[in-house]
């Protein structure tokens, strides 16, 4: 399955793009993270990061659908 992944803040710099397309064999959020961390080891150096699906924070077990809006959320620092 192909997933389009939006990136913000430092994730955008790590990916070198504000969105990338990832090819996944398994479709859970955990699978996406494993795949991204393989391609972009610097993700693992972050204090933490979360995945948002359709504008909601998503747990590792959530299964992704091709129509989902998926985003990588590095540690937030607004305010």
């Amino acid at each position: 399955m192909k997933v389009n992944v939006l990136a913000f803040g430092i994730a955008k710099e790590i990916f070198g793009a504000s969105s990338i397309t990832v090819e996944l064999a398994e479709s859970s959020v955990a699978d996406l993270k494993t795949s991204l961390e393989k391609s972009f080891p610097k993700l693992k150096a972050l204090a933490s990061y979360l995945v948002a699906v359709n504008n909601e924070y998503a747990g590792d077990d959530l299964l992704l659908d091709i129509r989902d809006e998926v985003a990588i959320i590095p540690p937030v620092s607004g305010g």
Partner: protein
Amino acid sequence: MNTEIKISNQALEVQQCIDWVMTPESGGIDVFIGTVRNATKGKQVVRLEFEAYEPMALKEMEKIATQAFEKWPVQKLLVYHRVGVLDVGEIPVIIAVSCAHRDAAFEACRFVIDTLKQTVPIWKKEVFEDGETWVAAHP
């Protein structure tokens, strides 16, 4: 629930925010204004750059507002966040809360800014003379 939430790339105006939350039923208004400080950990800050995942950030801000209305007898609640490039002294965020009594106004206002900083997908890059850092990105 009487809420005004905005993410803007224009300068935030405090007076407008206060005018919006004030009602004849209000007895106390608490306003928090974030300002760009000229230094972090002793290092001179040249400017800040804010970026938001806007649709999700608005949704998270709505959630915080809903919680504030559940927890305290809030009359009106405003949350404005700036994005883009900000110089020292500019205002990244304004939270304004009106209530019949002051305790609720203070507590709700503090809750909103504290929670915003934990959950709302907005990121801040500090730009120094000799480099830049995404705040909180690394341990």
